[in-house]
């Protein structure tokens, strides 16, 4: 459509204007400085595909080793690395980044936005993912890959039993990749809540956006516990702090709690977006709206909440109290309810519609068969006595692949075939696609259906060899043959994907007759997605108005063109979708790349134990990130001001509650999850650890802590008052006041340092001291950051970048101060006051 629509000179001008502002730079600079969500979403997915293929090769190696009894194909130490890396790569480097990439690519197009709300963060997330993935995978090529299993149980992963750098590669690489996941989680949340098309109230939002919103919030809350666990384990390995060592008062089970606190939500972080694909495709191919939109939304929300309440079902054999087991067992079964609701919503939609078995629908059908089976074995596993038998056997391996491959990979491929015409403008081949599907589907079931049986016959997971007398030969051979068949199927799919871009027939506009906004765009969509921003007052905008795409391209809707030179999109109210402001986005930038490179230097320095190098990297990253935050708001590089009609919505930097405040809020949610995990660790070690040593007298000086807290409290209250005054338009003396508040922040930090020094902690001797050190360090980092940011605000006020006309930024920083105030007093109470009150040491 788009080619024919751009006939009039006016439309031409509109698009060349937008292209000039939104375009990706050409050449090498373009490769490194792009911040556009379409480009980066595709990069995420392409990189994820590469890691998927690498992880798949590892799977083939495993199946070769296990095909016959007493195989000598791989020595055991290599096998251990291969299995560990297969799980790690598939989970962290394929599944999550792939789905994030899909969401990054699709979400703005689906909700009527031109980009995500923090474009530089998208780029930063991509670079972190790429560098973290390369560092992690490099370990395998160096033959020093982690080998303690993908969930890295301590003490097997501790320095005593894993002395090489393998575990360090895992901990650092995964943390690096998780920074990327968190970046995506934060900005997807804010984008979905604050940049929907005018009129797109929450209850009109496409279901896919609901799923991605849930996924993003779950990433935000679910990943920090593992980051904390990784930090603690790395501190134990590198500095000897005994968090997980019984002799020092630590507990190896703490790692399992932190890992599965993340690990179980992670399963739903992977499943929900995939289910979102299903809920998007089923109505399109049934030719009718979904039955029970509200039910699906409730199911998503309930799944999100329940998924944080069943991590212990991975630990039923750890020897936890019976009551806890019953609770987690029931909760694990309960999660079947929202899942069943979704399955029957899909069934009802198909029955009440006129479904077509097109290629994407075929993959969805494969998903249903496999996933229902995996879900049912999941309910079996939730039953504690059965779990005690099959836990850590191949039954669990089979179940997990049914859930993950069925629940994620099959819908992903359905989505790939469905959205491919949008990305490339061409249709994939039906015949090759069907061949690929059947090979994959049959190969998968051959591999893993029989593997349930192997597990019931007692084959434990992660053994590198087995004796013929066990009677597992035949089943393993069948599994291996199936595995290679599945590989052939995936190869066929890949050939299809690669070939179609060149030889596929041109896709007609909206080839599947879909209802959502992304199909109103040109195929492939331009960098700015929408030439003008449509109003959306229906769940099915394209079914209501099939010519919407033409109207958008002709610039008949809001904010057409970009004569002002800004990258603009509309900010809307979270609930109603009413327009609140015009958001202006920063353009292409090299800062994200350089900041991620600095973090890579930190990683490499830690891996090679050259700590000064890490410090240099850290300082570099800090400076670059601050520079990044400097080019914001009223800064000339962030927003050429141009003309803004008085009747237009205000620019967000001229308001007090723009998306930046929301981004800070969601980021602090992640930070809060990290903090809660830390508190959990403290109380867990205190109450459960077998050899916990609480000193008779708390080493922390109460007067120093109180003084430090007083400075912080004073600073926060003052800042809040000043921000409120700024919103009312009082800007006199702003620089001075902000400087004074920054000085209070500095005093807070200095007193905290004094308390730390006075405590004379011995973090390598006891887990108690080590935990105190980490807690205080956490406060110091946040206190320091709060002080620096407000000092920068003082400078910006002095330069006229912050003031009554630009009141936006101090309110953002004030959130951090408020947060620090909360965590400071909570943590002080937990580590300094409570032990005194309970007389715990005596």
């Amino acid at each position: 459509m788009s080619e024919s629509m751009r006939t009039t000179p006016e439309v031409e001008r509109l698009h060349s204007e937008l292209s000039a502002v939104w375009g990706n730079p050409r050449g090498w600079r373009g490769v490194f400085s792009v911040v556009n969500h379409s480009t980066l979403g595709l990069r995420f997915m392409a990189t994820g595909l590469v890691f998927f293929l690498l992880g798949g090769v590892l799977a083939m190696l495993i199946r070769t080793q296990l095909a016959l009894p007493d195989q000598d194909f791989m020595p055991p130490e290599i096998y251990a690395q291969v299995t560990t890396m297969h799980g790690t790569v598939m989970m962290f480097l394929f599944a999550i980044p792939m789905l994030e990439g899909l969401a990054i690519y699709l979400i703005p197009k689906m909700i009527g936005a031109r980009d995500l709300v923090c474009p530089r963060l998208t780029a930063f997330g991509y670079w972190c993912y790429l560098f973290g993935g390369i560092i992690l995978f490099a370990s395998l090529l160096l033959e020093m890959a982690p080998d303690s299993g993908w969930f890295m149980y301590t003490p097997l992963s501790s320095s005593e039993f894993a002395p090489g750098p393998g575990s360090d590669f895992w901990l650092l690489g995964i943390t690096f990749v998780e920074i990327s996941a968190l970046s995506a989680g934060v900005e997807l949340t804010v984008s979905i809540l604050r940049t929907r098309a005018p009129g797109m109230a929450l209850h009109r939002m496409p279901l896919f956006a609901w799923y991605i919103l849930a996924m993003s919030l779950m990433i935000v809350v679910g990943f920090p516990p593992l980051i904390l666990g990784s930090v603690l384990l790395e501190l134990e390995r590198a500095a000897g702090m005994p968090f997980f060592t019984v002799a020092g008062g630590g507990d190896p089970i703490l790692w399992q709690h932190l890992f599965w606190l993340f690990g179980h939500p992670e399963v739903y972080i992977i499943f929900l977006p995939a289910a979102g694909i299903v809920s998007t495709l089923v109505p399109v191919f049934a030719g009718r709206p979904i039955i029970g939109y509200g039910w699906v939304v409730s199911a998503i929300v309930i799944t999100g909440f329940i998924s944080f309440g069943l991590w212990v079902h991975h630990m039923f054999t750890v020897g936890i109290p019976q009551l806890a087991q019953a609770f987690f067992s029931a909760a694990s079964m309960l999660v079947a309810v929202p899942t069943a609701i979704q399955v029957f919503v899909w069934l009802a939609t198909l029955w009440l519609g006129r479904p077509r078995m097109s290629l994407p629908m075929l993959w969805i059908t494969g998903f249903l068969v496999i996933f229902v089976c995996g879900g049912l074995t999941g309910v079996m596993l939730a039953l504690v006595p059965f779990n005690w038998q099959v836990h850590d056997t191949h039954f669990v391996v089979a179940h997990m692949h049914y859930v993950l491959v069925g629940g994620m990979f099959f819908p992903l491929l359905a989505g790939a075939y469905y959205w491919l015409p949008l990305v490339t403008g061409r249709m994939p081949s039906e015949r090759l696609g069907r061949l690929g599907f059947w090979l994959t589907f049959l190969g998968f079931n051959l591999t893993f259906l029989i593997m349930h049986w192997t597990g019931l016959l007692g084959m434990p997971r992660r053994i590198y060899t087995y004796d013929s007398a066990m009677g597992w030969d035949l089943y393993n051979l069948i599994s291996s043959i199936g595995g290679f068949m599945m590989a052939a199927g995936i190869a066929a799919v890949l050939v299809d994907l690669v070939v179609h871009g060149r030889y596929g027939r041109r896709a007609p506009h909206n080839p599947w007759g879909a209802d959502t906004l992304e199909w109103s765009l040109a195929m492939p969509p331009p960098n700015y997605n929408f030439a003008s921003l449509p109003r959306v007052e229906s769940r099915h905008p394209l079914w209501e108005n099939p010519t919407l795409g033409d109207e958008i391209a002709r610039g008949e809707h809001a904010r057409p063109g970009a004569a002002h030179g800004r990258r603009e999109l509309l900010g809307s109210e979270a609930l109603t979708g009413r327009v609140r402001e015009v958001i202006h986005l920063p353009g292409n930038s090299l800062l994200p790349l350089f900041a991620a490179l600095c973090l890579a230097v930190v990683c490499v320095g830690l891996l090679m134990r050259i700590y000064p190098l890490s410090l240099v990297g850290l300082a570099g990253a800090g400076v670059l990130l601050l520079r990044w935050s400097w080019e914001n708001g009223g800064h000339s590089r962030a927003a050429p001001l141009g003309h803004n009609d008085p009747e237009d919505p205000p620019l967000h930097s001229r308001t007090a509650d723009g998306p930046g405040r929301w981004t800070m809020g969601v980021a602090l949610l992640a930070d809060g999850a990290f903090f809660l995990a830390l508190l959990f660790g403290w109380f867990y070690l205190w109450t459960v650890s077998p050899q916990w040593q609480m000193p008779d007298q708390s080493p922390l000086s109460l007067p120093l802590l109180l003084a430090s807290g007083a400075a912080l409290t004073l600073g926060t209250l003052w800042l809040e008052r000043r921000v409120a005054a700024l919103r009312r338009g009082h800007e006199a003396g702003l620089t001075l006041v902000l400087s004074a508040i920054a000085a209070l922040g500095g005093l807070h930090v200095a007193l905290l340092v004094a308390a730390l020094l006075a405590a004379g902690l011995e973090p390598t001797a006891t887990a108690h001291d080590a935990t105190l050190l980490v807690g205080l360090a956490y406060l110091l980092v946040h206190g320091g950051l709060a002080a620096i940011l407000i000092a920068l605000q003082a400078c910006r006020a002095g330069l006229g970048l912050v003031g009554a006309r630009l009141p936006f930024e101090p309110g953002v920083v004030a959130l951090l101060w408020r947060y620090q105030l909360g965590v400071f007093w909570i943590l002080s109470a937990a580590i300094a006051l409570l032990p005194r009150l309970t007389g715990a040491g005596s």
Partner: protein
Amino acid sequence: MPALLILVLITALAGCSGSHSILDPAGPAARDVAWLWWAMLIGFGLVFLVVVALWLAAFRPRDRAERSPGQPDTYDVERRQGLRWILGGGILLPGVTILVLLAFGVPAGQRLMPLPLPGGETPRVIEVTGHQWWWEVRYPDGAGEVVTANHLVMPAGEPVDFHVTGADVIHAFWVPRLGGKIDMIPGRINRIRLQADRPGVFGAQCAEYCGVQHAHMQLHLEAVPPEDFGAWLAARRDAEPESPALDDQHASARDSFTANCASCHRVAGLSEGEIGPDLSDIGARATLGAGTLAMEEGAIARWLAEHQHLKPGNRMPAHDHLALEDLEALGAWLETLRP
């Protein structure tokens, strides 16, 4: 495809047995779980078939002329139909399933709990410690003297409480034909109650990944009649310590043991090493290297010479400094240790 499935199923059913098979239970706890499995397989199998059939049936060619979009009540009719689907399949089906499961499953779990027995008596206790990559078994009734390694003897026909822990990393104690598994965690003692209905030999295996030789961490578990167990325990407790004076044929091998092996291995009456497995009864074991090698004449010598090849990465240093004939003599002497 169905024919293939049936074929697979038949072969599979024929293959229910096996030394590690959950589906060939030999004790009350394992039997409960096996029944649970078959019941769940049938029930869930039906659910699975119905859901898949409903899905495929939705794609059948249909004549939908009777539902023209103009009909005013269509929306309400659809709403009601949709609600029926969701309430029936999404709420009722999983709800009932979960209730039934918990009703049968929770009592089954009780049997593995070390709860007081109805008569007030306490079951016999056997302590098992997991090491990388072998098992240490202690019998408190044996006055602390009776220790076996990679070989566990228990009375049949009565419940036994196993108190387990890990010496280095986390292992898991699992006798599939008797019942569930429990983790062996450094710094903690976990308890599990198992019972073997009849005397017999059962495979046991470390179930928690514990390092490169996790595969070769098997335990040979032998259930014997209770009276035989008492006799065995008494005999082991009162066994004459290995005496240097007993015979001269193996004197040099014994000296070689004292010089090279005694700091790690215990042989009752001769050495007190605690780093490696207790060898007091090694001649009577069924396997070597925790299931790596079957015991037969000359097997110990072969193990001594090739153990880093047979079980790469195991914690025993290679014996390159000893001549092959010395190792053979050592093996021959060790084979005589069967108290």
